[in-house]
């Protein structure tokens, strides 16, 4: 007998698939097979940089056995995609960088090991900007990712956002039920908004960074992508948790985030920061933002205007702190212990040639900026000042929360997605401006969620962002669920 769930399993939400597996209406092998076929048919999107079908089917088979014995974990049999920033034991992990193109980890990242502990199935590794440095997934060594979305009446290829572009594209196109991402300045929330799906950047310290290729350690945080708010809540519960191997990982219980979905938001105070009304913001984004506030108000929340006076300084401060930390983290790629080596006459020439050949232009640029701002004579003027500004940015949020605000509502991005190759003016700052609404959250270590709000006149998705108090992801899930219910869900028309 064919039920709607078994006929198109890739269209199920992660929660629906979980429940269908539990009821034995569908097997994990069938669900995985359907996703492997979808991936094969969608190679034009370039979302996966490595497909692991044999591993996926073996994991699915083991899940079916556990489910048959009634021993299934919270994610038992659910096929996921993994951003190529997460080390996966025995499975090539490259950060989509030439310098790591042959790296096969001998260990598993903590976050992915939590997913496998809970029964999830790995479909493969997902494309991203090289070392997660980018906002359009155009800097990947494996080439750009294509969004499943297109402008109405156009065949032009659209970017999925970045750096977790493969994750966003794969989730939106039904090539996995959910995916992992990493977010240093917006790399989960911006692509989620561009792809019309949900993405969560948890509080700094909520997920272990151990085994994730490091970009900027004081900003990096892992989080989930999925097509519904509930699905991201389910995934985050598994991904989060204390890890003694990461000293910045917090030792506090992981709540049942799924239970927060559908919880009343009545009486919550929602802040609308006036500084996010930036010049040149399209009317459609402004209108969506207003609509988001109306939806929350209709659900019983109180809307208040708030001020985050240092907002405009977050992005410039980020472009000092993040490259500084990156230049230090990426010093490990020296052609000695792992990765690619280019021979040289002496050891310095070997380092310099290896790193010139192994890093792409964006990564090289950031390492050089980072090296400059940390160099003797410039440290105080740049790095120290940026860290002082960061303290002020965090204080803006603290003042706001101290005044009783439960969460802050903003647009997720200043525009809808753009076309591949459309932003190559030669001024790197043009691309950086994509992260203007998301980067403050990383600078302050707060949790943020991007949830779809609607489509623009050209038919491309637009997202809203909710920013929460530290470790209060639950409130974000409750609020995002209200927006989701009113805005509806968005699925791209299949063209691939």
């Amino acid at each position, binding site marked *: 007998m064919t039920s709607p769930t078994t006929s198109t399993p890739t269209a199920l939400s992660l929660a629906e698939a979980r429940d269908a597996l539990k009821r034995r209406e569908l097997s994990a092998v069938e669900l995985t097979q359907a996703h492997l076929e979808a991936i094969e048919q969608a190679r034009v999107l370039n979302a996966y940089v490595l497909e692991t079908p044999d591993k996926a089917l073996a994991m699915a088979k083991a899940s079916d056995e556990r489910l048959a014995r009634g021993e299934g974990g919270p994610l038992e049999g659910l096929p996921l995609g993994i951003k190529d920033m997460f080390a996966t034991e025995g499975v090539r992990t490259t950060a989509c960088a030439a310098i790591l193109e*042959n790296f*096969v980890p*001998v260990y598993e990242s903590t976050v992915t090991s939590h997913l496998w502990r809970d029964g999830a199935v790995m479909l493969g590794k997902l494309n991203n900007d090289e070392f997660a440095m980018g906002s359009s997934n155009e800097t990947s060594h494996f080439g750009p990712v294509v969004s499943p979305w297109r402008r109405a009446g156009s065949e032009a290829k659209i970017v999925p956002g970045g750096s977790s572009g493969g994750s966003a594209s794969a989730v939106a196109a039904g090539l996995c039920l959910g995916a992992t991402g990493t977010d240093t300045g917006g790399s989960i929330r911006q692509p989620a908004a561009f792809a019309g799906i949900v993405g969560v950047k948890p*509080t*700094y*310290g909520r997920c272990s960074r151990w085994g994730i290729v490091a970009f900027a350690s*004081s900003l990096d945080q892992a989080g989930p992508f999925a097509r519904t708010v509930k699905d991201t809540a389910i995934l985050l519960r598994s991904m989060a948790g204390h890890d*003694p191997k990461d*000293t*910045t990982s*917090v*030792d506090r219980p992981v709540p049942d985030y799924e239970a927060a979905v559908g919880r009343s938001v009545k009486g919550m105070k929602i802040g609308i920061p006036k500084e996010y009304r930036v010049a040149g913001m399209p009317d459609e984004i402004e209108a969506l933002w207003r609509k988001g506030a109306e939806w929350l108000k209709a659900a019983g929340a109180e809307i208040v205007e708030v001020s985050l006076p*240092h907002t*405009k*300084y977050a992005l*410039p*401060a980020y*472009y*000092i702190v993040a490259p500084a930390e990156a*230049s230090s983290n990426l*010093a490990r790629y020296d052609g*000695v*212990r*792992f*990765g*690619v*080596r280019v021979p040289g006459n*002496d*050891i310095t*020439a*070997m380092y*310099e*040639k290896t*790193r010139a050949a192994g*890093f792409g232009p964006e990564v*090289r*640029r950031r*390492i*050089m*900026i980072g*090296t*400059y701002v940390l*160099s003797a004579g410039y440290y105080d003027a*740049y790095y*120290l*000042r*940026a*860290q*002082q*500004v*960061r*303290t*002020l940015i*965090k204080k803006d949020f603290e003042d706001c929360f101290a005044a009783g605000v439960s969460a802050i509502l903003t647009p997720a991005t200043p525009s809808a997605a753009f076309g591949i190759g459309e932003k190559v003016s030669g*001024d*790197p*700052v043009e691309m*950086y401006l994509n992260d203007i609404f998301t980067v403050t959250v990383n600078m*302050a270590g707060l949790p943020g969620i991007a949830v779809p709000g609607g489509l623009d006149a050209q038919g491309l998705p637009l997202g809203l962002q909710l920013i929460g108090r*530290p470790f209060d992801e639950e409130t974000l899930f409750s609020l995002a669920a209200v927006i989701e219910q009113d805005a509806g869900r968005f699925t791209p028309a299949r063209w691939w």
Partner: protein
Amino acid sequence: MSVDAATVRRIAHLARIAVEDDEVEHLKGELNAILAFVEQLSEVDVTGVEPMTSVTPMTMKKREDVVTDGEIPDLVVKNAPASQDHFFLVPKVVE
């Protein structure tokens, strides 16, 4: 502040990235665009403001000072571009 060609070469050397002569001008332009962008931070009054060292208030956890890992030299050198007898091989550094 802005960088000149000599500074670009010096930064590249500090970062151990070989830069060809014909790349210097282009890099100089890009780096100066970023430096011009971050220049706006000089408007902010940071008098008496503590620089951020940790985004979430926490004391660094310390574990017991005992050996918890090791005896895995095969795995340690597994991804090395050149190794011999569990040593990493590099070009000669001492004459």
